[in-house]
């Protein structure tokens, strides 16, 4: 799988309340949630983000609550993938379970220009290419078990197949 998109930058410890505030949790509709994505820390974000864009963040992205609404809101906004130095574990789990591609990359991407620079992400190789400069970054590849989860289309499909004995 190869994705390409314009990037948006976020810092360390972006919590799930920042991604989607609790006051919007009385819906589970991804598009409705997306209208409030990152609203409390970047109010103009829902208006700026376009289909295919990529979120680039620092350490511990998605810390805080277990709300699956957070990756759902990101997916609902059309974000194609999230790249962070590290993810909080429940967010990581949830993203994989719902089929939102995420990558851990320990290299410093914070110098990129938000809303301008484009990245090309190759999930099979775990490489991230900065289109403007051609510079390449290496991300951690998925463990085989998770590759299987993703290739089956997420956890529900994976367990369904197990329950059906295939």
């Amino acid at each position: 799988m190869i994705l390409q998109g314009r990037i948006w930058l976020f810092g360390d410890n972006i919590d799930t309340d920042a991604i989607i505030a609790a006051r919007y949790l009385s819906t589970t509709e991804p598009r409705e949630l997306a209208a409030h994505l990152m609203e409390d820390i970047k109010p103009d974000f829902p208006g700026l983000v376009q289909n295919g864009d990529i979120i680039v963040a620092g350490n511990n992205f998605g810390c805080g609550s277990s709300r699956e609404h957070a990756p759902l809101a990101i997916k609902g906004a059309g974000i194609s993938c999230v790249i962070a130095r590290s993810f909080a574990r429940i967010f990581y789990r949830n993203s994989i379970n719902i089929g939102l591609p995420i990558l851990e990359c320990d290299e410093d991407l914070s110098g990129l220009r938000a809303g301008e620079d484009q990245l090309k992400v190759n999930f099979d190789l775990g490489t991230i290419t900065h289109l403007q400069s051609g510079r390449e970054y290496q991300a951690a590849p998925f463990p085989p078990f998770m590759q299987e989860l993703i290739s089956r289309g997420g956890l529900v499909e994976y367990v369904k197949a197990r329950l059906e004995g295939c």
Partner: protein
Amino acid sequence: MMSYGNGMTMVEKIFAARVEQDRLSPGDLVNVKVDLALGNDITAPVAIKEFKRFGLDRVFDPEKIVLVPDHFTPNKDIAAAEQALVLRRFAEDYGLKYYFEVGRMGIEHALLPEQGLVRPGMIIIGADSHTCTYGAIGAFATGVGSTDLAAAMASGEAWFKVPPTIRFEYSGHLPEWVSGKDLILLTIGDIGVDGARYRAMEFAGTAIDTLPMDGRLTMANMAIEAGGKCGYMQPDQITFDYLEGRVAQAYTSVYSDQDAVYEKRYTYDVSNLEPQVAFPPSPDNVYPVSEAKGVKLDQVVIGSCTNGRIDDLRAAASVIRGRKIKKGLRLLVIPATQQIYRQAMDEGLLADFIDAEAAVSTPTCGPCLGGHMGILARGERALATTNRNFVGRMGHPESEVFLSSPAVAAASAVAGTIVHPGEVLS
């Protein structure tokens, strides 16, 4: 690796027993049967939607799924009412034994241990990040997402990566007015909000040996605030006394080996510890209460899955008894379950709060997540016994939340500014 032992930690042993292997190490992936799967009125509707994709007419075990509408209940608006209805219908349709309706419920993480649903050695998942609370009883318990809950409701299973364990040792004995909340705030302040990311946190030491169960539950509850996968105490007499009369089934306590391998160890001498306060906007922004002195408050909240238990209400009431809260300040007291509410009533604690001019509410998460029942306006500042103080957590993005123990919260409600309980009492 810091240690060179060959033994296993409690969490490694719980998983190893389940997959019938002699040995498991951090990083190993396991697929295990869970003993309990939990959801609430925010996360379960998403899980139920996903569960429907399985096309099953039954859940894996109607006695091992627990649904608790606690976040936006009693229903705060029409949307919340519809979500709560999804849970109620599902519980009826699939014959779930443990669905707790308003009037019988409580905040999930106070309710499950109280109702005897948590036993040592269990594997518990909950679609709520504070599911880690149950580690205080020697269970492996961790927060997952709604899709995990859906899969577990269908198959009874969940996948895990065995986490490395960090050991936290608290030596000495806690001074007066210093509680489990202060120990965990101290720890998070020290290691940071990702200091235990993906890790199990083992809490031990002389200060833990004498810490009552309510204080232990508070500590394990906030493991997630350090990024922990779980936080736990190994069962001892305090655990067994707590379980007595609550749990009928037999259980097997699991203990870390003497030579267990820990990724890291932290030790704290707590004999001279001051009560701790987390400043906004993060639970790791922690200072001793003396450095928070004088911070002016608009609202104080005593409650939540962190500190809404009977010991918490007793500590708060002992400070507030016979006093009035500061004019212009609002104090909200929210017992975490119906049973705690009733007990607080019997002990006269609710009268203490009401006489002090506090508002006392039926159990709900309410203000803890900025849901309802105590939202902050722009520029307002609260001190809460809850667990998170992120931007906008309790209301307007420009409001602020400080975190503390119930004793500090009660004293500060009287003073109108953050203060050590000793100062209010003297």
